[in-house]
């Protein structure tokens, strides 16, 4: 059945690619194809100790598949970790496709084809059980993303994605080679690693390669360009779903392949492996710097891109700390981020669909015009800012608890401050786009755009009330790493430090809300226009038009304080490295003379060296 | 150089107060020259209505911080619709003074793009600071005739 799935996907790619002139038909076909991974996911739910209801028993996908290829065996098999990340991707993907059906008015066949190919690559990555399969599908995913970036048509985005994608692939490939060199096998399960420096080098290379996809600083440079210059449904999938693959890779190799005990053997600091400690510090820095940069953006998509970088930093912190608490927190944050960031990008797409604008300073007052889009993004924003009326809080809470448990004295304040900084940019979106002066007389977004947004909001509310269900999901994953899930009931989570009872919060909030509502209903009210506003007595209608929207340069004092420190961004750093590389490169170029005679001499020299080395060995 | 040295025809009213009477086409030149010679503060532009002569007197007042000297450049233009060149290219703040004088006296300043209503929004009558405008009569005919609010 796995082969059938892949075959259907490939057929779907060809069909929708041919249907370029009929975007609606192509979209509907792509939507049906995109549902297949979700059904596969359902049929594999036994790996998470979930029994399917009887009416879904007919779904019967095989759980593993092997194919003998020259150097090794290609193995695809479902694992709890793969299942979890497949849950994120396969529930997000159909929604994104559904959103695209009304979003694209023409020329969409290529988009759907590339999207299906991306999903196929991700599907393979999540099931891969050996490095060969992993790398093949990784490349399929990377190249089909490139196709989608090229559709955006921005040169800087393409160049930065291409160079960083190549860097990522190189790092991963080099790491894989070192691992193969060490163990002589591609299959994860057959690897027996020891605490040698070679393995440390390999795992460092692999993790930094995945960090590119996960947009960890300073590898994030490509992300703002790609996020802000590509088509919105794709960006939603890229930020919400595909960026998680980087963290999937980090988790797979750090805890699945290498393992916590081996990580500890390279040195620990207060019970945390130094390797993880440095990852956590990088994550905290990413969370903080991403937040500060997000506050300074005026382009809605760039703001969301930097916010994405910042929020993904939290996952890195969790993966770095590596206790069951922290891993649960990291996975929870991954789940939340998938849904809320996808909703926000889709909402940005819906706003663009109606107004044709992305600049926050040019938008305004859409909250009353597009109430459902506004409410969906409000929930997403609550989740982003970790307000305890969505599940976003539980994830951050777990991460804070994990950090305090391991006495991360300097990382935790940075995490918390990044959380407060999130309020700043979140309010910039709220005010700049949805509140304030109504500048556009537009209709609500079409239903086929609203439905995906609201379906994606649902998990945020379900896991608010029952975070225990989520902890249940993590239990099989942690079992694989010889850890036990954190103590919990469906609606409480206990740690060694404190307890979090969601029912208490929700019922108390409902109670106080009723109290406030009674106060509020005590007196009647009349609605007034936004023009009837206190402007020191100045009646706005006396003049032609005064803009009452103060969203241009909204955080100017903030920028004045922080901009000097962020002026020389990571981009500058890479430019310096590039300049250094160019000096080296131009030296190297002298070798390539273009004369055949010279090349033959090189080949001869190479063989001589090889033979000499072999003889001496 | 002090104003007295620049313009021999200037008369000194008292110490530190110079008055230059001139024609309207020379004003720009004089202000420019004074500005270049440390009279860099443009104090104000005022207008006097000499109704018996049939003239408006425009007074450009400048001040030098270096010499502590006040210079008044006075010109006279006809009351009946003679216009004046705008000096806003020399000092941007002149624009507002010109706007006010335009509203209160009805003097037209050529080259000032901003001669719109200033304080009197929608004023339909003769500019009120002209001496032939009878403000007492206007007040009696207008403000005192607005009816009281009658209570039944």
């Amino acid at each position, binding site marked *: 059945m796995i082969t059938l799935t892949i075959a259907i996907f490939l057929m779907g790619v060809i069909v929708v690619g041919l249907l370029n002139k009929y975007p609606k038909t192509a979209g509907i076909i792509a939507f049906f194809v995109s549902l297949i991974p979700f059904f596969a996911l359902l049929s594999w739910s036994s790996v998470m100790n979930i029994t399917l209801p009887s009416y879904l028993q007919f779904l019967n996908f095989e759980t593993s598949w092997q194919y003998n290829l020259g150097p090794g065996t290609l193995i695809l098999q479902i694992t709890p970790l793969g299942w979890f990340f497949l849950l994120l991707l396969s529930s997000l993907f159909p929604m994104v496709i559904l959103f695209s059906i009304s979003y694209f008015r023409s020329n969409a066949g290529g988009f759907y084809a590339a999207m299906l190919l991306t999903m196929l690559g991700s599907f393979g990555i999540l099931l891969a059980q050996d490095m060969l399969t992993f790398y093949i599908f990784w490349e399929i995913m990377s190249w089909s993303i490139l196709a989608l970036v090229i559709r955006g048509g921005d040169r800087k985005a393409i160049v930065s994605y291409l160079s960083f994608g190549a860097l990522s692939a190189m790092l991963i490939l080099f790491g894989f080679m070192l691992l193969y060199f060490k163990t002589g096998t591609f299959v994860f399960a057959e690897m027996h690693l020891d605490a040698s420096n070679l393995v440390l080098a390999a795992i460092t290379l692999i993790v930094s390669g995945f960090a590119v996809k996960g947009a960890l600083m300073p590898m994030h440079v490509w992300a703002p360009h790609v996020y802000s210059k590509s088509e919105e449904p794709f960006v939603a999938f890229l930020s919400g779903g595909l960026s998680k693959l980087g963290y999937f890779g980090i988790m797979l190799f750090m805890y699945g392949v290498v393992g916590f005990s081996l990580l500890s053997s390279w040195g620990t600091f207060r019970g945390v492996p130094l390797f993880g400690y440095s990852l956590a510090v990088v994550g905290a820095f990413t969370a903080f710097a991403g937040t500060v940069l997000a506050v300074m953006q005026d382009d809605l998509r760039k703001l969301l891109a930097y916010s994405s970088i910042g929020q993904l930093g939290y996952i890195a912190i969790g993966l770095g700390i590596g206790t069951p608490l922290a891993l649960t927190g990291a996975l929870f944050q991954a789940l939340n981020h998938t849904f809320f960031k996808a909703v926000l990008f889709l909402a940005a797409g819906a706003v663009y669909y109606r107004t044709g604008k992305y600049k926050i300073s040019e938008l305004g007052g859409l909250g009353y015009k597009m109430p459902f889009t506004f409410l969906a993004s409000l929930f997403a924003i609550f989740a982003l800012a970790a307000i305890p009326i969505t599940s976003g809080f539980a994830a951050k809470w777990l991460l804070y608890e994990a950090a305090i448990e391991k006495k991360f004295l300097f990382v935790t304040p940075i995490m918390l401050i990044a959380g407060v900084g999130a309020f700043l940019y979140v309010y910039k979106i709220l005010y700049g786009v949805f509140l304030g002066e109504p500048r556009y007389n537009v209709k609500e977004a079409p239903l086929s755009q609203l439905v995906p947004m609201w379906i994606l909001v649902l998990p945020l509310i379900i896991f608010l009330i029952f975070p225990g269900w989520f902890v249940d999901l993590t239990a099989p994953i942690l079992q694989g790493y010889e850890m036990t899930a954190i103590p919990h009931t469906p609606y409480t989570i206990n740690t060694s430090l404190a307890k979090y009872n969601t029912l208490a919060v929700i019922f108390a909030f409902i109670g106080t809300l009723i109290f406030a509502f009674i106060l509020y209903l005590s007196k009647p009210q009349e609605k007034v226009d936004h023009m009837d506003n*206190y402007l020191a*007595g*100045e009646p706005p209608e006396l003049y032609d038009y005064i803009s009452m929207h103060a969203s241009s340069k909204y955080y100017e004092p903030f920028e004045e304080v922080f901009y000097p420190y962020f002026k020389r961004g990571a981009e500058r750093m890479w430019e310096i490295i590039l300049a250094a590389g160019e000096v080296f490169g131009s030296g190297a170029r002298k070798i390539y003379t273009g004369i055949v005679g010279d090349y033959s001499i090189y080949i001869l020299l190479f063989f001589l060296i090889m033979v000499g080395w072999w003889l001496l060995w | 150089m002090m104003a007295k040295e620049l313009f021999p025809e200037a008369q000194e009213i008292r110490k530190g107060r110079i008055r230059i009477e001139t024609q309207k086409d020379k004003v720009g030149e004089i202000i420019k020259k004074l500005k270049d010679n440390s009279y860099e503060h443009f104090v104000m532009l005022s207008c006097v209505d000499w109704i018996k002569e049939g003239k408006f007197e425009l007074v450009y007042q400048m001040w030098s911080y270096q010499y502590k000297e006040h210079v008044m450049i006075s010109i006279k233009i006809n009351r009946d619709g003679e216009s004046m060149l705008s000096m806003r290219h020399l000092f941007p703040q002149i624009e507002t003074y010109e706007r006010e004088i335009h509203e209160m006296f009805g003097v037209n300043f050529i080259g000032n793009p901003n001669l719109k209503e200033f304080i009197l929004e*929608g004023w339909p009558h003769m500019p009120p600071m002209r001496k032939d405008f009878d403000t007492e009569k206007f007040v009696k005919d207008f*403000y005192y005739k*607005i009816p009281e609010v009658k209570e039944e």
Partner: protein
Amino acid sequence: MNHENWSKLARIMSKRSLWMIHFCTGCGAMEMPPVMTSRYDMERFGMHAMATPRQADVFLVTGYLAVKTLKRVVQVYEQMRDPKYVIGFGSCTINGGMYWDSYNTIKDLSKYIPVDVYIAGCMPRPEAIMDSFLKLFDMIDKGEAIGWQKYHKYYDQYKRNQRMAFSYRLDEVKDIKEDDKE
């Protein structure tokens, strides 16, 4: 609690916590700092200077009003929420005061918005201002400070007067006069 008692309670509350917005048009604003600060201290009565009309209960018009200013005064007055009270400061708001023959200042504020208490004087001393506050309390207590009700009731007339003043046109004044005769 029946309606009568309720409105009485509301009156008491509104008396003891008058938040004011003062519209600093003329020299009258100069007399407000002593009233607010330690010499006279109007916070004793629970009075408090507010920054916006939405929060305010009492409107202090402190001095003469040009027609352009009147537009702003009307805007601010209409943004205040009921019950609201107006205190007219000094002679200027009563009959124009020293601006009696000015072409651009209105002469009688009560033609344009209802005024509950006038303070005579040019300018009124802080004692007079405090006295006016006490007078206003007294009126609120007795239910006599009904300017805001009058504004609702005779809204047409107030609006007509405001429109006339904004237009500066003598003929409009005459037209209304003739209409009234008919």
